[in-house]
């Protein structure tokens, strides 16, 4: 992602400090490595006229923002009580079998990683995974297998390029 592209995102939000979360998440979701690197933190600080420390305080506080490189597809599994006792943990088992890595570990090709997160409001759709903004509901081992194959084949461009939307 080029500096110009990052600046375009910041400009879309009129460099308004109120929109720092939108700015950081948009940049993160569109970046190749899926995290806020120091160069980006510096740029956002400069454009919003706040300190870099403040940007890092925010990045470390909010769970969606990341300080370290992520896999291309981060599969999120709900670990809050309603889902935890309604079949959601089986998704971790399936993923461990299919990907051969544990929670929070990246596959060697850098494509996949999975971890638990708190409630995403999809409690009636277990078992599911969430990737960026997208929920893949009512999974079976077969559906999950197909999802992973589709992701490898690049079928979900919206999960790579981030979301597009209009801002007021």
């Amino acid at each position, binding site marked *: 992602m080029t500096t110009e592209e990052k600046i375009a995102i910041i400009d879309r939000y009129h460099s308004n*400090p*109120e*929109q*720092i*979360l*939108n700015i*950081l*998440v948009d940049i993160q979701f569109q970046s190749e490595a899926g995290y806020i690197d120091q160069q980006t933190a510096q740029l956002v600080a400069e454009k*919003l006229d*706040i300190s870099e420390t403040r940007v890092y*305080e*925010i990045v470390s*506080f*909010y*769970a*969606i*923002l990341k300080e370290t490189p992520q896999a291309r597809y981060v599969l999120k599994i709900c*670990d*809050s*009580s*309603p*889902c*935890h*006792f*309604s079949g959601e943990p089986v998704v971790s088992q399936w993923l461990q079998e299919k990907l051969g890595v544990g929670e929070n570990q990246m596959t060697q090709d850098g494509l996949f990683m999975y971890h638990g*997160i*708190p*409630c*995403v*409001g*999809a*409690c*009636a759709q277990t078992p599911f995974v*969430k990737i960026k*903004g*997208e929920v893949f509901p009512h999974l079976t081992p077969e559906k999950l297998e197909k999802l992973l194959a589709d992701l490898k084949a690049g079928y979900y461009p919206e999960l790579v390029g981030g*979301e597009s*939307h*209009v*801002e*007021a």
Partner: protein
Amino acid sequence: MLKRNAPVLTARFEAMRDDPTDVAHYRQLGGYEGLASVIDMGREQALDELDAAALLGRGGAAYPAGRKWRHLYNAAGETKYIVCNGDEGEPGTFKDKALVESDPLAVIEGMTIAGYEFNAQQGYIYIRGEYRHLRAIFNQALENARAAGLLGDHILGMADFNYDIRVISGAGAYVCGESSALLNSIEGKTGRPRVKPPHLADVGLYLKPTLVNNVESYASIPVIMREGGQAFRHLGTPGGGGTKLICLTGHVKNRGLYEVDLGTPLEDILYSEKFGGGSSTGRPLKFIHFGGQSGSIGAADQLHDCLYSYEDLKDRGLAIGSGAIVAMDDSVGIVDYLTSVANFFAHESCGKCTPCRIGTLRILELLEKFQQKAGIPGDLAVFENMVTHVTQLSACGLGQSVGKPMLSGYELFPEEFKQAINWQTVERKEVAW
């Protein structure tokens, strides 16, 4: 006319499915009649209608909306802000998501009525990070309302009615659902709660008087103003008017979102085919967790004649909270369940105050020890004390709520906790606090 047992907040969902942001269609279905009524009746009368409606805050705290509005109405200051809390983070809750997605104009109308009531220029809706994809639809609804002259300068052609709404989105922090933390987050700061008092109606966003209400509360406002406070109140019970959006999850057959009149028998909600449809696993339901992780737990077999109303639940030490209803069957041990709840609180504690930051972790550690059946005599007293201290000493609602699930669960199923203790070992004597 409002009919009993008919959809009110979800009434337009089906009809507007194709384009929930279509203002003309929204107006055909009663939209913006609430705003027109308020302008017609005047601001003082609108407050009386809200009092008469007995609308209790739908985010979870059940604070009377009428009282909150009156406080802000009387607060000194020219500049006042309107804020909508859409940081729906209580596990097992997805009703605000449904409103924002399926009837965004109702939320906008409610916020616009508030803007008129308090002469505010700027409103904000804070949508949680996990619902970022809903921004597009909400922004479109805002855009359409502006184009129709219902937001922006000179709303409805009135010279001094200038008001607009901005969307802010979160980035994954449950604590931002706490009103003062939410305001900090809007200001571009980390979303940690402020020390209260002062009340946000006196010192809120950018230190100005601010109204913070939940999405469902705002969506109820146009109905109240259009139909009258009494009509709204009659849908519910004396302890709280209106309908409530509920989210049924866990081990019931028909999981999902429903709208019920307050005062509907809980048995109907759990077991009738119209709603939950009973157990999905073939095993009997054992306990119900109400209102999110911060709510209390009730035993299914002790709730036969309970109504789903503010007062009936309160009589039993329970609460409606966010509207989450999580049903668990008898395969789920209470210690395992509460460990999952404790894990959530330990993860979401913002770290600002010590009792919550450290206490939630200590509670989690104790419960994990109980899961291993590795408790020693005296541990149960330590558990009770720890929960009580976190509840009493924490600065905000997050830590103060920890006791509700923990102690209600412990009191309902004490024998399961006792089984987690190895009674042969030496007792742990706690140092006095």
